[in-house]
């Protein structure tokens, strides 16, 4: 009787599976979701116009899958580019990008498990010189910019009446160092234009990332730039020791979503997240004091202003970028937002495979030209200015030619 049951079950389940497979195959053939096409393979090119001249991208002769991974921050933008370029290249170039974290992305690229790695900060000096020592030819290029927003949860503060809360780098450093305990500290009150008396007499809960992240690296680097005390006692990196935690007024959250969630659920808290998360959470964003002495919110104007000043300082893509990491934050410019970060790709100059070289070259050339147009940029990211793109494009030209 049992054997009857089992054979009946196997029969039913196989009929079900066949049914599901049948439906899927039907829809797959209907919607042409698999755009790899047989015709027009050899010598297929895409022509794009950049800076008044047309560039033709040589595509590989067989379908190529490029595997990349790293920065969680750039993942949505990379997925948008990957989907659009796969459709544009008629399935010849597929970019499989997975957000495994900046550190892991660089490490797996270094061990040659990935074709490229993406990181929120340039390669650290020791890793750079270690890879350089093996004679491997590689470059790092910026591909897109973003900002880190300071979010806060102050029930007493009415944005409609008082405007967004104003903060400066020194005050932020003092908060996370534990020098400022309460919201009504004179240092915070003196920064406010109006409503200074609305700031409550309650301790500030400083929220930070508990996992290693490029966001923390950029934020702590900014604090180190504006505060000598921070630089000497804490420093900067993917993870740091947060002095405020020892006072009992600090909390860690995992990932940007964890920090956002903690700020939402903890009154009188403050935290730092990538701009996209701040925009989606509907939490108020603090205005930060920039080098020119103005209070600015992170938005398209203020971020691109900061990128414009940074791009004059970009080194050659084959050089060590870590030595100038501190020169790309907190820049001059009336409207520059102080905490702007870049996503860097680390990639080889030669993949020992003509088709792969062509595929990577075509993809990167496309994202550095057409990909930077506003219709291809996801909300929360900012395109790079022309000066930065020119440096990167010149480096990408060299892929496969050595």
């Amino acid at each position, binding site marked *: *009787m*049992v054997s009857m*049951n089992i054979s009946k*079950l196997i029969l039913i*389940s196989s009929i079900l599976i066949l049914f599901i497979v049948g439906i*899927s195959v039907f829809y797959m053939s209907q919607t042409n979701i698999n755009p790899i096409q047989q015709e027009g393979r050899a010598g297929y090119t895409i022509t794009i116009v950049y800076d008044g001249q047309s560039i033709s991208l040589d595509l590989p002769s067989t379908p190529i899958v490029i595997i990349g991974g790293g920065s969680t921050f750039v993942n949505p933008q990379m997925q948008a580019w990957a989907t659009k370029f796969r459709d544009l290249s008629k399935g010849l170039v597929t970019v499989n990008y997975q957000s495994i974290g900046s550190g892991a992305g660089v490490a797996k690229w270094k061990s040659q*498990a*990935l074709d490229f790695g993406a990181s929120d900060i340039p390669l650290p000096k020791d890793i750079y010189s270690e890879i350089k020592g093996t004679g491997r030819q590689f470059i790092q290029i910026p591909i897109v910019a973003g900002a880190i927003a300071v979010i806060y949860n102050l029930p007493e503060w009415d944005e409609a009446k008082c405007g967004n809360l104003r903060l400066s780098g020194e005050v932020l450093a003092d908060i996370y160092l534990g020098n400022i305990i309460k919201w009504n500290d004179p240092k915070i009150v003196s920064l406010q234009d109006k409503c200074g008396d609305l700031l409550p007499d309650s301790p500030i809960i400083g929220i930070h990332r508990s996992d290693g992240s490029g966001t923390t690296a950029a934020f702590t680097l900014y604090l180190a730039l504006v505060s000598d005390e921070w630089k000497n006692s804490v420093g900067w990196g993917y993870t740091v020791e947060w002095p405020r935690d020892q006072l009992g007024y600090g909390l860690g959250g995992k990932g940007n979503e964890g920090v956002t969630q903690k700020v939402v659920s903890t009154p009188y808290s403050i935290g730092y997240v990538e701009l996209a998360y701040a*925009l*989606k959470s509907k939490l108020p964003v603090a205005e930060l004091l920039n080098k020119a002495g103005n209070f600015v919110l992170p938005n398209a104007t203020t971020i691109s202003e900061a990128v414009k000043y940074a791009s004059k300082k970009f080194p050659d893509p084959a050089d060590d970028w870590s030595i100038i990491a501190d020169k790309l934050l907190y820049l001059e410019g009336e409207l520059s937002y102080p905490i702007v970060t870049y996503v860097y790709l680390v990639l080889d100059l030669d993949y020992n495979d003509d088709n792969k070289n062509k595929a990577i070259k075509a993809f990167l050339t496309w994202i550095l030209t057409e990909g930077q147009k506003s219709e291809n940029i996801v909300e929360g990211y900012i395109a790079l200015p022309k000066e930065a793109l020119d440096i990167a494009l010149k480096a990408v030209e060299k892929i496969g030619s050595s």
Partner: protein
Amino acid sequence: MIDLRGLKSKVMVAAISILAILPFIPIVHLFFTVVVNGIYAISQNFPGFFYMERSIPGSGVIGGVGPYIIGTAILVSIATLIGVPLSILIAIYASEFIQSRLTNVGDVIITTLFEFPTIIIGLMTFALISVLNDMIRIYLLIDVELPKFSVLSGSIALTIVMLPFLYVQIKESLRSIPISIREAAYSLGLSRIKANFYIFLVYARGSIVTSILIAISKIMGETAPLLFTAFGSDFYTISDPGFLFKPIGSLTLAIYNLGLSPYEEWIATAWGAAFILLLMVLSLYIIARYIARGAYLR
């Protein structure tokens, strides 16, 4: 006069009932959130949700989870194809040669693996392939690289996750076969191999099939061992002839990646993926229970 004993009894019954219901509340809550959000997400793009790719964030369109469903199906079937025969063979050895030193040592090792964090199993598989690559390069002197991120390494990691569970279950069901059945089988003059394959496995088939189904649903929900092995992919890869050596996506990896993003479209897609995974696991459990009940009624 108040009936003190009756009152005491009623209070105790009430307290115990409340305590019994309490642990179910989070489970029921979890179940209903996944079902409600999942059905809502799928209904916004039906039936496209089952075969399309994830959408571009910010586009306002809810994509689909087609590549992830196929990825999970491929990973789990290959892991099952490797894991089930292997664990049956090991379990037969362990139930036949109880006194053997190999059984004692192997038993300890495999049951230790049972409680291993699955992320370590993923990293171990990744490291294992690196070591294999070094050995091929040094000893065989040929320029062949086993891909570290591939369907095969993902399946191997899942096999290692399911192996201890299956081994313990099958070994126990083989050992619990009554001695009278064993004696009857050997008195027919069957060899040990034949007795095991033709009599004992068939006798214990109900519990074996049940444990296989539960093992499959167990590995279906695994994320950690796949992070550094199957790696993930958001596109259909099966049209590629060498897809076994390329990364592949899975439902669990998709839930992990899409659910943590700030974009509504992706979060909705993750809910839908969670609902589909829930359905797959639930149906396996129901089939397993059905078979188990049939085995007892025999």
